[in-house]
């Protein structure tokens, strides 16, 4: 373990290749980012932005047909792209963990909660069943599940949505990972349950020095939880930087439009700024800048040439010709 960044992506690109190699969808294109230990990164994007594919790329859990075609991926200084499937297996769940949106889909309805929380411990740390179950009980306590001794014997369908998501969280942290990737973890939860859950994640992060990556479409989560933000559009990062800078002075028109389109309390009479059109189909991207058809500030150059990333401030950059 060096003093370098925990996670480094350098020009990472993931493409989906259709049957017979004809259709190529550039789901993730030329993504570079850095994450330090204990930090929280928010990756913001809508459907088709490639954010989930990015998360799966980091864990090398891509579906058949998808391939990382270029770029570098380093975790704790180690090149993840050079790892064999067996080595990746040791990393997943133990050093990098993931939480998904739907807790019911993440839990196996046929196994007890205890079995499922204990499983990673047994697999990665070769613990005995008894010891793993004991650790599972403790973990349930860490995620604030009341009466853990009783819960370990229960099945997922006996628990509420919020509790299930906590179980998923417990499974994720069971082997002490350094990085936790959460893909829309609270989208299916009620507002107050979501607040509880985010509070819990913050607590776990503080206690265990976890780095978090939040994949979300909700800027509110970013505002609440994240230190840095990367905004994705059509597979590329269009803006990235410290969270306050992004919220105070967004440089990219997409980021700006997103922030202005969200209703805020106390602004009931203000007309929301809508973004015309819809997010592009990743298989059929426009020429030049992908956002240009919907951008109110587009200039001729935008339609022809794709802008590179321009530095706008300290660690803050945006891919827009207007920033160059």
């Amino acid at each position: 373990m060096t003093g370098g960044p925990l996670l480094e992506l350098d020009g990472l690109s993931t493409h989906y290749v259709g049957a017979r190699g004809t259709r190529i969808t550039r789901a993730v294109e030329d993504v570079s980012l850095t994450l330090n230990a204990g930090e929280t990164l928010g990756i913001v994007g809508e459907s088709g932005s490639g954010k989930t594919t990015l998360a799966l790329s980091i864990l090398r859990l891509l579906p058949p047909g998808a391939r990382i075609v270029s770029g570098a991926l380093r975790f704790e200084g180690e090149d993840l792209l050079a790892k064999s499937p067996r080595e990746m297996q040791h990393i997943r769940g133990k050093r990098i963990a993931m939480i998904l949106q739907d807790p019911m889909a993440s839990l196996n309805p046929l196994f007890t909660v205890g079995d499922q929380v204990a499983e990673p411990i047994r697999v990665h740390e070769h613990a005995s069943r008894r010891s793993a179950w004991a650790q599972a009980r403790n973990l349930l306590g860490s995620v604030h599940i009341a009466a853990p001794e009783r819960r370990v014997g229960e099945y997922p369908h006996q628990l509420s949505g919020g509790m299930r998501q906590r179980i998923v969280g417990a499974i994720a942290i069971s082997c002490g990972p350094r990085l936790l990737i959460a893909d829309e973890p609270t989208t299916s939860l009620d507002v107050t349950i979501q607040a509880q859950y985010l509070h819990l994640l913050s607590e776990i992060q503080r206690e265990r020095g976890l780095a978090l990556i939040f994949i979300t479409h909700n800027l509110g989560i970013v505002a609440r939880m994240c230190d840095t933000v990367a905004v994705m559009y059509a597979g590329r990062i269009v803006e990235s930087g410290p969270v306050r800078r992004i919220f105070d002075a967004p440089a990219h028109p997409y980021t700006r439009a997103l922030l202005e389109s969200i209703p805020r309390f106390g602004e009931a009479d203000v007309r929301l700024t809508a973004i015309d059109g819809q997010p592009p189909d990743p298989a059929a991207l426009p020429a030049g800048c992908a956002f240009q058809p919907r951008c109110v500030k587009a200039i001729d150059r935008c339609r022809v040439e794709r802008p590179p990333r321009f530095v706008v401030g300290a660690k803050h950059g945006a891919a827009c010709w207007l920033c160059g």
Partner: protein
Amino acid sequence: MLLDVRNLTKHFPVKRGLFGGEVGRVRAVDDVSFVVETGRTLGIVGESGCGKTTTAKLVLLLERPTAGEIRFDGHPLGSLQGEGLRAYRRSVQAVFQDPYASLNPRMRVGEIIAEPLVTNERLTADETRVQIHRLLDIVGLPQRSATLFPHEFSGGQRQRIAIARSLALSPKVIVLDEPVSALDVSIRAQILNLLRDLQRDLGLSYLFIAHDLAAVAHMSHVIAVMYLGQIVEIGEARAVARSPQHPYTQALFAAALPSHPDERRDEIILMGEVPSPLNPPAGCRFHPRCPFVMDRCRVEVPTLRDSEGREVACHLYTGVVSAPTGVPAG
């Protein structure tokens, strides 16, 4: 007032065994009263199990109430059948959450939009076509959409189609059940703006149901907060959002995500889960999770009372006893 809902109650019996002896009741909606005024929006917020969707179904007459009544334009809906029911349906339409499930995948968009017209009026083919075009225009979709099928449209566009259809009979009230939750963030503003414009131009009233507090606060004139089948607070949207009175409303608004990293909210983290409407707690239904619970709350059910310009059902506020229906207009 256009829609006057009084003491609306809906219980679903839970049956066991082959011959169905009733072993319990799901108190989905319990003694709910509110008013929707012409040209105004009533927003209903609440979490899972609070009864807001059931309330929507009751207003749309997709379910019949166990007790209570709904008056439309002064006339009680009661046991409306036939022509009376038809007239009501003409005036009250709906837009639902899932744009992918709201449109029959086998019908062309023009047919979908015109269905309410075809069902309720005798129009010639030409007249129908004119209406379809008018409605497509209103929601900002191109004319050629009429011959296409739903799957050729994006989520936001489908929601526009659903809105166009809901306007076909020139209704007075539209029930919007989570109309933008399933849409991409950048599309939501489009649809919300459209809805507001339509309200302004056509004098529509909305029953806006959502879990996104900011969206509800943005769109509504009046907000009603529901918990486990009951309204715990109801009043002017601005007032409720700025200074919520009921402890649940406070927790709800405190839990809402900030719109800026520096926005500090008092963290009110509620304990426990939302109890099931099958077995609501005695007394005030919120008391097991309430940070300000008193002995009285465990026993006595609080009723809605006036407090600082809105109505709150909470023992913390002893105010003037008001008539349990309606909301002060304006």
